[in-house]
């Protein structure tokens, strides 16, 4: 189980959050749960790293936020991917794919 962002590959948390938001806007807990589900429990994030990442993404203009009611009629802050965020997600995904492929080639070479 990984619970510290430093254990994630550096810089991937932001990309993963953007990916999570690509389908629909979501509140903090929803994002955490979605990441856990999609990673089959590998990424369990603590609140601190998650919210710091939100603040960072928001300040970079990649996401914006709005207060809404949840399905359980609780007030929560929902994060929405901006156009800029969507572009960044695309470019980062491409870059990621390129790097992973390259790393794989190196590892297979020997």
């Amino acid at each position, binding site marked *: 189980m990984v*619970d510290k962002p430093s254990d994630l590959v550096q810089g991937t948390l932001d990309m993963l959050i953007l990916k999570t938001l690509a389908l629909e806007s979501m*509140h*903090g*807990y929803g994002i*955490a*749960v979605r990441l856990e589900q999609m990673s089959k429990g590998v990424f*369990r*994030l*603590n*609140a*601190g*790293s*998650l*919210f*710091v990442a939100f*603040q*960072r993404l*928001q*300040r*970079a*203009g990649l996401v914006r936020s709005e207060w809404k009611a*949840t399905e*359980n009629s*609780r*007030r*929560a*802050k929902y994060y929405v991917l901006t156009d800029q965020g969507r572009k960044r997600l695309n470019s980062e995904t491409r870059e990621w794919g390129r790097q992973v492929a390259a790393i794989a080639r190196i590892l297979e070479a020997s």
Partner: protein
Amino acid sequence: MSLLRSLSDGLRSLFRKEQVNRELNEEVNSFLEMAAEEKRKQGMGRKQALRAVRLERGSLEGTKEVVRSAGWESYAETVGRDLYFALRQGRKNPGFALSAVVVLALGMGVSLTIFRFVDAALLQPLPYASPERLMSVNESNAESPRWPLSYPDYLDWQRLNKSFRSLDIYNGSGYLLQTRSGATAVQGERVSGGFFQTLGVRPMLGRDFSPDEDRPGGPNVAILSYGAWLHHFGARRDAVGLTVNLDNAAYTIIGVLPRSFSFARAGAAEFWVPINTLSPHEQMRTFYNFWGIGRLRDGVSAREALAEMSAISKQLQMQFPTSDRSEGASVVPLSEVILGDVRPILLTLLGGAGLLLLIACVNVTSLVLVRSENRRREIAVRGALGASRSRLVRQFATEGLLLAAFGGLSGVIFADWLTKILWRLVPKDMAADMPFLAGVGWNTHTCTFAIAIAWMAAVLFTAAPILRLTSQQPGDGLVNGDRSSANELWQRLGARMVAVELAVAVVLLTGAGLLGQSLYRLLHVPLGFDPDHLASVEVGVSATGTEKNQQTVALYREILRRVSSLPGVESAGISSMVPVQCNCPVDWITFPGRPFHGEHNTVDERHVSADYLTMLKATLVRGRFFTDTEDASKPKVVVINQALAQRYFPGQDPLGQRIADYEGGRRSEREIVGVVADVREGPLDSDIWPAEYFSINETQDPYFSLTVRTRQDAGAMLPLLVSTLHQIDPDLGAFHEMTMKEQIEDTQTALLHHFSAWLVGGFAAMALILGVVGQYGVVAYSVSRRTREIGVRMALGAERRGVVLMIVRQAARMVTLGVVVGLLASLGVSRLMASMLFGVNSYDPLTFVAVAVILAAVALAACYIPARRAARVDPMVALRYE
């Protein structure tokens, strides 16, 4: 875009703290609640679920703290809080803050000021195109490493050399400018045609000299300096093309030089004319009158150029063996010639200012240390309450930075003020010879310097207390306040710093003592005449030419008759130059009947009226002075000084002997009729040269000095002299009216000595005050810390006298250390200063002893006060103390 958002978002967190905090709280809380809800669905109890979430996801407060401290605004907030705290500390303890800032401002202000002058003179390049390629190119001989060129030599050097892209000459001159309101004397400079091109300067208006204007017999043209354009032509655009009357000849103005142009060696020359009219002297190969400058070709070094010019000089000597054999060439950078005189004095001053800055910093550091010592308990408490070491370090750094910033700012203001004061002390004539000082001000160099010294000070003020306080365990401070072993360490450190301050003060005091003594010696060198109650004015006669010669002598007589009859004038005389100015102009003499091998027998040459030497109260040793009737029609006679008699007529009677020279290519012989005791013709700090005096009625100079001895204040006579001259002839130029005292004090030698002595003296006085105050502070502090110990000693029977002695003895140890180290350092420093000293040995024992005694006495007096206070301690009070 995102930077902007980050900024506005951060600012919102800073200024709408409440709201942002509430939102974060709600958001994180809802996150944790949702997580807990999940757990409860899995069957946990509410409390248990919350606990599990806290473990898994982190606590509410912890998360909020992490998020808050992630943005830049949290850093800014800490810095702000540190700043606020530091400012409050300063307000709580205004004595400390004020004295630290004042001391720092003093040290930084002085060194900044001096650095600005150093920068303007030594660091800024000369205002010409690639100034490093510009060389001063001259002859040299056995007497002088740099000797002017003769015109024929110049032409040959220019023709034969391959090292220089261009070679030009210049030579100062003066003119009478005829204006509607009469004649005024103006400074001019004669230059060869390519002079401005060689410097890489182009006229701002009009044009440079053309080749035909450069040739002998070319038309009379002039280029104006910016100043002349402004003052004589009201900055009129159409000034170019006008004609001016200089020395009764019409000159056409062809150009105006840019405002930024200056040439130190020409002073404030206003009219620049081409060298196209040569006097008969100037056409001779042995009349050395022109200074040369050259621009090196690319790839040629100064040494290669020197080698070539020396070879050319040798070749010319073979060809024209009239001159002496010791002649060679000199090629040195132009900057060397322009700045050579001021470099040592500026570097000395910079050194002095640096030492003062050092003292100031040490002083403030010890203040900071004393204060941090007093705050040790506070720091210990903060440490115990969980402030991290880096947090404490940051607090100190903030305080150090703040102190250095305030000190630096006040220093900058002080420096501006001080620069203005110094500027005002430089006489105008001298300022004209140092145009490079006009660049004094704020630029990249000086700003960098200011920031660098402030930064260094900040580091020092931060590092000192941190090193001091982190060398002990936090527990120490809590347990026993201040009477720990660390206290002894501090005392030793404080004592060492005071010793440093005292040592620096010793160095500065010694320097000031030596410079002060050499100033005194300089102003008291024997002059050979009585300088009191003498007033003089320079006079120019515009009417020249052979037919006017009889008129010139008549004019001398008329002037002397009218001036002598003025009320308050005792006697009057005329001379080609007043004394104590320059070992120039010179004459090369030979002795008929003695073998001559082309050696240079250089003597000062002066032309004087019959009563001039009597008026000066110079002593006649043998023979007689001139009579008024001795003019060009009579047999030529000469009066010599004792130095000439001793050098060239040792053990003989010079009276009746003859000396000869070549004037304008004609050999003339004169009979010696008198010997005068040496009158100081050259500068104060030079040896007395041999001198010869001719009758001015014979030489008939169109430019001369009128000097009168007055009964009362000489200065009051000056306007009357000028108006009398203008009554005699309104076209006479009368200028530079001054008393002899002013003349002497305004010489460059006297001024440089005055300057260095007063400035270094001022530095030394400040250093003494700072050092002694530092000494007082350390002793007073250590006494206050030892109140209890002293109380115990007295309760056990120690006498008051004994207590005083004990404290003074301990202080004496650091005073001795400081003085000894300072004296050793002074030995080295005074040797560096040797070139600036006059008439005093750089190891002058009197100065060293006096400085040691004065400093020791003052420093010990400074610790006597706190020592006596300690001895007055009531043992009972002291024992109860804290």
